[in-house]
């Protein structure tokens, strides 16, 4: 099992001939991901380590069955590239690119919604179904297959937690990076629903941060979950202050603070870790209790 991607997922790399695109294509192939093609406008007909490169997603799709695309393209071209992938019928699009204008992100997400496409990111490390498929940029050594599903807003913090789980011999089912930007394709709840249904997943780690109300929304869903959830929220030391404009306050209405998020999650039965390194211990305890 695992969610969204697995050993049968065929992957396209958009921006495969760029520095990052080529480096991470090699890493993904080394992990065992089925990279079947790449796209780089003007570079059609070339190859990257034997992987055929096309000028457009359309021509790549004409030659290969493609289940997911990953974008290593500059921010100003990212919306066009994502839309191109969706118009070609690809149903999972992983947008690694950071610094995409937020209006472009809203357009990408809206386009995806109207066409039943799953967007992971933007500004994400990607998604990894441990031992099966890695689409994104984390080091291959972080992951081992196992029972823990991870969903996170932060890249490096996820590596921190995943690597410490792996060090304890606790493997992962699927690790999903929602993306660090304000507008991203998936919410915590979307992923929690999938992990709750996934047969391989026996415990879930949620890695959040201050701001927004995503963690509070997640807590509502977690109340109904059967699997144990461990959370870490970054930003405890952030000081409060005043802000520009009122719209944010009206949208959030007091949500978004560290204390508020922790209290809401705890009330939903979540074990909240004080420090990132405490997560693996709490997961290990929750797995033992769940046996």
């Amino acid at each position, binding site marked *: 099992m695992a969610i969204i991607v697995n050993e049968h997922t065929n992957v396209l790399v958009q921006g495969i001939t760029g520095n*990052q695109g080529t480096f*991470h294509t090699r*890493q993904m192939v080394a992990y065992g991901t089925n990279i079947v093609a790449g796209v780089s406008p003007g570079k059609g007909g070339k190859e990257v380590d034997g992987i055929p490169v096309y000028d457009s997603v359309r021509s790549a799709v004409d030659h290969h069955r493609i289940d997911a695309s990953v974008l290593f393209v500059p*921010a*100003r071209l990212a919306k066009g590239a994502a839309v191109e992938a969706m118009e070609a019928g690809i149903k999972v699009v992983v947008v690694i690119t*950071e610094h*995409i*204008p*937020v*209006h472009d992100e*809203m357009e990408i997400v*809206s*386009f995806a919604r*109207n066409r039943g496409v799953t967007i992971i990111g933007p500004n994400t*490390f990607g998604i990894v179904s441990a031992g099966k498929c890695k689409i994104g*940029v*984390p*080091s291959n*050594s*972080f992951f081992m297959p196992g029972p823990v599903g991870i969903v*996170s*807003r*932060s*890249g*490096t*913090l996820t*590596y*921190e937690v995943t690597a410490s789980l792996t060090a304890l011999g606790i493997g992962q089912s699927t690790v999903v990076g929602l993306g*660090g*930007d*304000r*507008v991203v394709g998936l*919410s915590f709840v979307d992923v929690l629903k999938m992990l709750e249904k996934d047969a391989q997943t026996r415990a879930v780690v949620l890695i959040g*941060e*201050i*701001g*927004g*109300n995503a963690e509070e929304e997640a807590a509502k869903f977690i109340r109904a979950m059967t699997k144990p959830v461990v959370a*870490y929220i*970054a*930003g*405890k030391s*952030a*000081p*409060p*202050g*005043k*802000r*520009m*404009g*009122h*719209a*944010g*306050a*009206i*949208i*959030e209405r007091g949500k978004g603070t560290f204390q508020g998020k922790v209290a809401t999650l705890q009330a939903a039965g979540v074990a909240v870790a*004080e*420090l990132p*390194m405490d997560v693996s211990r709490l997961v290990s305890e929750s797995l033992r209790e769940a046996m």
Partner: protein
Amino acid sequence: MPVEKIFHRYYGLRLRGDEQVKLFEYMGKELLAGYGVPVPRGRAAGELREVAEIAGKIGPVVIKSQVLSGKRGKAGGIKFASTPGDAVRAADELLGSRINGLPVEKVLVEQKLNIEREYYLAVAVDGAAKKPVVIASSRGGMDIEEVPDQYIVKVHPDIEQGLPFDLALDICKKLEIEERYQNEMAGIMGNVYQVFRAKDAELVEINPLVFSEGIIIAADAKVVIDDEALFRQQEIPYVDERTPVEKQAYELGLSYVELDGNIAIMANGAGITMATLDTIQHYGGSPANFLDAGGGTGMEATARALEILLAANPRAIFINIFGGITRCDDVANAFVKVKESKPIPVPVVIRLVGTNQAEGQKILRDNGIGVYESMEEAVVKVVELASGN
């Protein structure tokens, strides 16, 4: 998202290094006027001579300090004047003073409105809904944040469709706006939405939107532009709040924030940067500043980042890198290069794991530099070094 933007957006604290692109009220009003939103007659001025000239043309005026801060009225930054002489005296008090800690370099001199009613109107990015949101209330004015939910209308237009006139009319009806004002109000909503979309805004807020002598007019304007979109919004004027060091950091692709402790921190990524601050504080240390080196930091940027950190004279430096897109060997090479080029006067604790971890750690060890794998051990060490024990 860079960490200082998280601090800003959700805690509102204006940390240094925050590259949010904000407009002074007068800039926002010029933008709105360009899209057909009525604004009071008036102009910004930095000199008393101009103030007298503008006030002489208008009559009774309001003099508003142009600072990027809310609650200017409560802080004494807004004054009224019925003659040009009064206007000059009021402007003289405001220009060069500080309102909410910010220097007043310009005042907006504009027509005093006879306010019958104050509404609130904003178009913003709603991250949770992943859509634009139109927020409107019939109880605008200074205490909008306290207004109960039932007096606030929130509508999420489909970004592919925009804000159709019918939807704007619905909002007016929900606000129980008198029928004779509904068309005008709906038109203004459409125009404000257009500014939001055309200018890559994160926020366009009018508070209050005033009903005055039969017309609706924007008595204030707060506009925040998405800094990631500046490449296509080059003509928009905005206020650059950054210091030279912060500009330097930004140009290097780094996010830099100054704090008041004694441990300088470099980490990569917003989440781990915040977690590093949390952990240092947990073990009794205090951060002097921090740099979020982001992803894909090259050798040159890393070297410059260290120089920036050292400029604050910290007692110790903590480098916490968990490489994904960032490669550990790049970071290690950069650090070695900096160390060779000039001595680093304070102890440095490096925690380096992730992509190309073995190579990176080897480079450091070969150069006689100790390196940690555990963040916790590294934090304990750096806190100990900074406390001088």
